[in-house]
C-alpha cells in the first residue's frame, strides 16, 4: 500500500457527517435502553408480527455486507486489476456493515444482556446458531484477507484468502436465506429459492452501497472518477438488478402456482394495502425499473449514484414487504376453514413501527457509516487506478 497517495479529507462535509452519525448511533443506544427498560411494548412489534423494522435494517446490512465483497472477489479470485484496486475498500465496507447489522440484530433481542448465553450455548440444529459461527468466521476471514493485501510479505496468500472469503460469503448469505427458508409453517417463507434469491440480491445491494461510498470518498478527496470504471461497474449493477428481479419473480410465480398459496400472493401483491404498494412502487418501480432506465437508457450520461440510491431504497421496500408482510398474513392453521380468535387467528395482523425502531435501525446504519468513514481515512483505502 506504500505507493498510495495520502488521503486528504478536505471536505467539511466529511466531519459534519461523521459527527451526525455519532449522534444517530448514540440515539440508537438510547432507543435500546428504553426498549430494554420498558420492554418491546414501546415498539410496534407484537405477538403476530414478532420481527419488525429493526430486522429490515439488520438483514439489509448483513446481506449487503456479503454482496459488497463481490468487488473484492472479482479482483482477487478472478484477477481483474480494476476491481482489485477496490478490494480493500470493499472489505472494510463489508466489516462495517456486518458490525452495524449485527448490532441492530443483537440489540433488538428481548434479552441482549444474555449475549454470552448465545455465544456459549450452540444448538446445532438452529440456523440462527450457525449464523453466529458464520458471522464470526466472516469477520476473521475478511481481516486476514485485508492483512494479505496490506502486508507485503503476506501478498502471496492474497489469492487463497480471497477465495476463502468468496466461498464463505456464499455460505453466509445462504445462511441468511435459510433463516426464512427453514420456516415450514409460514406461507411467505419455507421456500428453497430464498437462499439463492438472497445471494443475488446481495450482489445488487452490495454493489449499490459500494458505488455510493466510492463516489463519496472520491468527492471528499476532490478526485475525478475514471469514466471507464464507472461504465463497467454500472453495467455490473444493471446485471445484478436484473438477476435479483428474476429470482423475486420466480419466488412469487411458484407461490402463485400452488392453490394453497394463492391467498397469500393476492395479499402481498394486490390486496394487502401497504405491502403491494411498497412492492410495486417501492421495489419494482423505484428499486428496479428506474435504476435500470438510468443505467441502460441510450444516449444519456448515466447517473450511477442515483441508480444506486434507488436500488437501496428498493431493497428496504422489498425487505419490509418480505419480513413484515410475510408475518402479517395469518397462518393457515385450519386449511379449508375460516378462523377467528382473540389471538389474531384468520386476521391480517397490524404493525406500525415506532420511532424507537427507526432510531435503532438508523443507529445500525450510523455504526456502519462511522466504521467505514474512519477506516477509509485511517487505512488510506482509496482505490488507486
Amino acid at each position, binding site marked *: 500500500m506504500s505507493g498510495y497517495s495520502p488521503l486528504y479529507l478536505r471536505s467539511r462535509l466529511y466531519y459534519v457527517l461523521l459527527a451526525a452519525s455519532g449522534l444517530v448511533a448514540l440515539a440508537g443506544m438510547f432507543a435500546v435502553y428504553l426498549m430494554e427498560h*420498558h*420492554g418491546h*411494548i414501546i415498539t410496534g412489534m407484537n405477538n403476530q408480527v414478532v420481527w419488525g423494522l429493526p430486522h429490515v435494517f439488520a438483514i439489509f446490512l448483513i446481506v449487503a455486507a456479503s454482496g459488497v465483497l463481490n468487488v473484492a472477489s472479482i479482483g482477487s479470485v478472478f484477477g481483474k486489476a480494476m476491481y482489485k484496486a477496490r478490494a480493500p475498500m470493499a472489505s472494510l465496507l463489508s466489516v462495517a456493515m456486518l458490525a452495524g447489522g449485527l448490532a441492530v440484530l443483537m440489540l433488538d433481542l428481548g434479552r441482549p444482556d444474555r449475549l454470552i448465553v448465545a455465544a456459549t*450455548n450452540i444448538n446445532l440444529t438452529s440456523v440462527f446458531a450457525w449464523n453466529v459461527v458464520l458471522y464470526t468466521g466472516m469477520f476473521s476471514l475478511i481481516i486476514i484477507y485485508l492483512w494479505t493485501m496490506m502486508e507485503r510479505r503476506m501478498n502471496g496468500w492474497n489469492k487463497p484468502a480471497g477465495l476463502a472469503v468468496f466461498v464463505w460469503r456464499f455460505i453466509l448469505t445462504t445462511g441468511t436465506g435459510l*433463516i426464512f427458508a427453514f*420456516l415450514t*409453517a409460514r406461507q411467505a417463507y419455507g421456500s428453497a429459492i430464498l437462499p439463492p434469491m438472497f445471494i443475488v440480491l446481495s450482489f445488487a445491494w452490495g454493489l449499490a452501497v459500494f458505488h455510493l461510498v466510492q463516489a463519496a470518498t472520491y468527492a471528499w478527496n476532490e478526485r475525478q472518477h475514471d469514466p471507464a470504471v464507472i461504465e463497467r461497474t454500472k453495467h455490473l449493477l444493471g446485471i445484478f438488478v436484473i438477476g435479483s428481479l428474476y429470482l423475486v419473480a420466480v419466488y412469487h410465480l411458484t407461490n402463485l402456482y400452488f392453490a394453497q398459496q394463492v391467498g397469500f400472493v393476492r395479499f402481498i401483491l394486490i390486496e394487502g394495502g401497504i405491502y403491494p404498494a411498497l412492492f410495486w412502487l417501492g421495489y419494482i418501480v423505484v428499486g428496479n425499473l428506474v435504476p435500470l432506465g438510468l443505467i441502460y437508457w441510450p444516449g444519456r450520461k448515466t447517473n450511477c449514484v442515483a441508480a444506486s440510491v434507488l436500488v437501496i431504497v428498493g431493497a428496504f421496500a422489498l425487505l419490509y414487504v418480505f419480513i413484515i408482510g410475510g408475518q402479517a398474513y395469518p397462518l393457515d392453521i385450519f386449511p379449508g376453514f375460516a378462523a*377467528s380468535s382473540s*389471538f389474531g387467528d384468520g386476521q391480517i395482523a397490524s404493525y406500525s413501527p415506532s420511532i424507537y425502531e427507526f432510531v435503532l435501525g438508523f443507529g445500525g446504519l450510523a455504526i456502519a457509516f462511522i466504521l467505514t468513514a474512519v477506516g477509509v481515512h485511517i487505512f488510506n483505502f482509496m482505490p488507486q487506478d
Partner: protein
Amino acid sequence: MNINDLRRRNFLKTSIGTAAVAIAPGFLLFDIAHGKAQAVSGKVRWGMLIDTAQCQEGCSDCVTACNKENGLSGGTSATDSQWIRKVEIKDISSGRKVSLPMMCQHCEHPPCVDVCPTNASFKRADGIVLVDRHRCIGCRYCMMACPYKARSFVHEPLTDQNPDVPRGKGTVESCTLCVHRIDKGQQPACVESCTNKAILFGDLNNPDSEIAKKIRTVASVQVRASLGLNTGVRYQGI
C-alpha cells in the same frame, strides 16, 4: 504448645464454624428447591384429546383457568401473552362451525426446539415442550417457526408472578401443560376447569390409559398433520 499455636487453632476453628453456618442454609434451601430427585420418565408421553363436539362456543373456562394458574393478565391485546385461546372455525364450503381450544401442541418433533439458537426451547423426556427462561435470549425465532402460533413474547415488565410459574420480560413463553401440576400428580388447569369434559389428559404411551384407549377407538386428528410433527394434542370432530 505456645500461645501462637493456640491462637492459630482458635482462628481456624472459628473460621470453619462461621463458614459452615454461612453455607448450611444455602445447601438446605437448595435441597428443598430441588424438588423431586428422580428424572422424568421417557416411557411416559403426556398428551391431550380434545372433543370439539363437547367444546361450547362462547365458553372460555379453560382460558380463564390457565390465566389464573399461570399468573397471566388475561388481556387480549396484540402484545398480551395468551397460552391457550379459543378458536372458532367455520368450514368455508359447508358452513359447519366448530369451537376449540388451541395451545402448544407439544410436538414430538417441535420446530421451536429445532430453531432455538441457545437450546432454551427444549422437550422434556415425557414429551412436554418448555422454554428455559434463563437461557432464552428473546430472539423470537421459535414464534416464527411455530405452526400453531402457540407462543407469546413478554412485552412488558411483570408483577405478581406465580412462584410455580416463573416468567420474564423479554423472553418467550407458552403452554407448559401445567408441568408444575403434572409433577405433583395433578391434571393441567384447563382440563380440570372444563365442565363439559371436552379435554382428556393422560399418557399416550400407556396402552391402558383412558386417552390411549379412546384414541384407538375414535377418529382423531392432529392439526396440520401434514407437517409430520406428531403432536401430543389431538382433536376429535374437525
